[in-house]
């Protein structure tokens, strides 16, 4: 397997992967979307809410706020040693919101939350939660837990995770009459007219739409878009809960766990026979 990092920053990662297959990439994608755990608020105790927004609406907004996740400290509630419905320090973090608009209208942002664990805070302090008119008040306690995307989207650690086959764009300069139509139509500006030649700028950006092939009047086509079924462009964008590298390595751990679990169970059942 060959791999190259095309782009990487704090919250996103783009890889070019060669020598694998779609089934494997899809398993990773599905695990990232629905099984890699992250922290989110799933219980809100509202002590006072005199804002114009109803309690359940407010709770919903708080639930969708991505939280920085410390996977090494927290346990999934179902795996926690406390076995309690309410949770303990190892499977629950509490955040407090206590705001009041005194004499003018204010917007309450996620940054107003005070967390009992300074590592479990909203990924951004600039998420608007609620607007308060003068003398309105919100006081509440929110409990964050680890969870999985398969239970609710608020526990998805990514805002996007997708893959595509690696595009291969070819221009046959012998056939090309330099009409420029393909350069014009390409939505990703993969093709570039340079002098008396059509050049390929960045074939990895191609979406495989094949519009360039459709518009080319030549027979056979002077431009051709094909893809390599064993190479992929894999991109993922974290919500900020976990680093993109951690998300990918957690997904690999989960897949490994499934395979190991299966082999063990299968060996057990086989011996029963």
């Amino acid at each position, binding site marked *: *397997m*060959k*791999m*190259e*990092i095309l782009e*990487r920053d704090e919250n996103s990662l783009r*890889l070019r*992967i060669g020598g*694998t*297959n*779609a*089934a*494997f990439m*899809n*398993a*990773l994608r*599905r*695990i990232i979307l*629905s*099984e890699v755990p992250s922290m989110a608020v799933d219980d809100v105790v509202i002590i006072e809410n005199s804002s114009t927004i109803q309690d359940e609406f407010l709770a919903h907004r708080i639930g969708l706020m991505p939280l920085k996740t410390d996977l090494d400290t927290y346990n999934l509630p179902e795996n926690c040693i406390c076995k309690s419905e309410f949770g303990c320090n190892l499977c629950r973090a509490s955040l407090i919101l206590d705001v009041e608009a005194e004499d003018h209208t204010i917007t309450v942002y996620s940054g107003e939350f005070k967390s009992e664990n300074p590592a479990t805070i909203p990924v951004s302090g600039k998420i608007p939660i609620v607007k308060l008119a003068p003398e309105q008040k919100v006081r509440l306690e929110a409990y964050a837990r680890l969870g999985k995307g398969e239970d609710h989207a608020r526990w998805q650690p990514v805002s996007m995770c997708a893959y595509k086959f690696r595009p291969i764009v070819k221009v046959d300069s012998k056939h090309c009459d330099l009409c420029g139509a393909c350069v014009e139509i390409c939505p990703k500006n993969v093709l570039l007219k340079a002098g008396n030649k059509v050049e390929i700028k960045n074939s990895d950006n191609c979406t495989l739409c094949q519009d360039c092939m459709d518009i080319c009047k030549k027979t056979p086509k002077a431009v051709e878009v094909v893809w390599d079924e064993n190479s992929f462009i894999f991109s993922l964008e974290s919500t900020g809960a976990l680093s993109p*590298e951690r998300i*990918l*390595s957690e997904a*690999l751990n989960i*897949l*490994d766990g*499934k*395979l*190991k*679990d*299966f*082999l063990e*169970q*299968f060996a057990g*059942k*086989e011996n029963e*026979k």
Partner: protein
Amino acid sequence: MNVKILNRKENELKIEIENEGHTFCNVVQKALLKDKKVDLAGYSIPHPLTANPVIYLRTKNKSKPETVLRKAVAKVQKDTKSFRAAFDNALKVYKDQATL
């Protein structure tokens, strides 16, 4: 995950996996299909609300289906291992380039 053997014949195997889905079954099915000893391999999810897919496997030339299935799963395990190695290497190369 809980594995149940539904049917076992000389060159046929049908198993049910509780609490799984396409994630696990699809990789295993594709790995099985690459094996020349496999005559037929497939899976189905009988009901979308119960996550209990059934994997069916038929082998050629009296090969033991259990061995073939175990080999296919081991193949996917090898894939995760090489993916991890390739990713660690790619990260290292990327970091080296960034510091240059």
